[in-house]
């Protein structure tokens, strides 16, 4: 059964996790990721709202109104999980105890700058916990649709106000897996249904495409 593009991206991101990782997932597409974490891989999900060990959403009749994720969705707690206040929660985040954070973006650029909190003159959402997470998590993965209705989201330089400076490590989209390096944006994988020309056309930023670029595949 073919995956839709959102689940394709979610599964490719899940494949980047290692045993023992502590992972924080943003709202939107990243919430699909838990369904794709291989059984047997021990990944601890952190919610910045004060929880470690988030489990799947409960059946409606088993909701505990005090257990929810940072997007406000009902959740469960896995055995070995724990609850704490926001100072402890962001102490864990700021202290570097979250290995990976995965979140969406309005814009990302060649230096790894990320903008996702406002569109000048249009939208003002706020930082929430994103700024702490992308500044302090050991690895920052952006998971998103490659374009916004055809308009590029990956730039040489972000024009929106930044959520974080030089923080993004990897960008995973429906078209490619791109690594942010000191040399620039290096395309490591291209989706099977995407050509190099399509990828370049959908990206404002200069891309480095090595000879050994791989086809993006998921198990």
């Amino acid at each position, binding site marked *: 059964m073919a995956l839709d593009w959102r689940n394709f991206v979610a599964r490719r991101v899940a494949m980047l996790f290692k045993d023992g990782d502590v992972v924080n997932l943003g709202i939107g597409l990243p919430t699909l990721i838990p369904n794709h974490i291989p059984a047997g891989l021990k990944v601890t999900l952190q*919610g*910045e*709202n*004060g*929880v470690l060990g988030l489990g799947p959403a409960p059946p409606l009749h088993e909701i*505990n*109104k*005090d*257990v*929810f994720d*940072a997007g*406000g969705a009902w959740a469960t*707690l896995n055995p070995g999980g724990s*609850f*704490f*206040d*926001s*100072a402890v*929660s*962001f*102490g864990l*985040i*700021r202290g570097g105890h979250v290995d990976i954070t995965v979140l969406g973006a309005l814009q990302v650029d060649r230096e790894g700058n990320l903008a996702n*909190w406002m569109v000048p003159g249009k*939208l*003002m*959402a*706020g*930082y*929430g*916990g*994103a*700024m*702490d997470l992308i*500044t*302090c998590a050991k690895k920052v993965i952006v998971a998103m649709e490659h374009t916004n209705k055809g308009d590029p989201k990956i730039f040489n330089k972000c024009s929106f*106000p*930044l*959520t*974080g*400076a*030089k923080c993004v490590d990897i960008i995973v989209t429906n078209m490619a897996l791109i690594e942010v390096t000191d040399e620039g944006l290096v395309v490591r994988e291209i989706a099977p249904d995407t050509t190099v020309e399509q990828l370049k056309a959908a990206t404002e930023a200069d891309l480095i495409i090595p000879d050994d670029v791989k086809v993006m595949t998921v198990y």
Partner: protein
Amino acid sequence: MGKLMSVLEAIEPIKDGDTILVGGFGPMGYPGRVMRAILKQTELKDLFFVANAANQNYLVALEKLLLTRARGMIATFTRPSAAAEKLYKEGKLEIIPQGTFSERIRAGGAGIPAFFTPVGFGTAVEEGKIKMTIDGREYIMEKAIKGDVAIIKASKVDLEGNCFMSGCTKNFGALMPAAAKYTIVEAEEVVKPGKIDPELVTVPGILIDAIVKVGA
């Protein structure tokens, strides 16, 4: 007089111009009963709110107070909120990162006037703030937040004010009482002292001034 009182007695000490810290992560842990009383049963004005979020759908009393009776707000996420948009355009809304928000409140309660954090460096958050390079990395200095009043919600409270906040409802309400001069807690369950396990006290009673029991 004991700490258990009516909502009107509890909010009586609040004054025009006060800075009010409001607990809750979205609707979870948000003290809706006390906030509604401030909206509907007082004419308090020029209030300054410190709350994680504004949200016109879930935090209705706060939204209405922000629209007409607030001189400003500190928050981390304010969508959707027409009131927050209005304050933002007027330069009266300070949006800060959630970890910095939490830590500034904790600092306010813990006698730490300021601390350094890497969060916000290289963004609009750093504007106007003292910067320092410490052990080779760059940081910005953030100052404590203190309030006149904290309004929080607990899952259970005893008559001395000891609060238990269940699961993810601890969030910011657990930090605010220490940072405020006067704290009101609302709870559906009020018990005798000793009925909350001493290992499960989220906020010690010495930080609580007023307890309001709300219907379950």
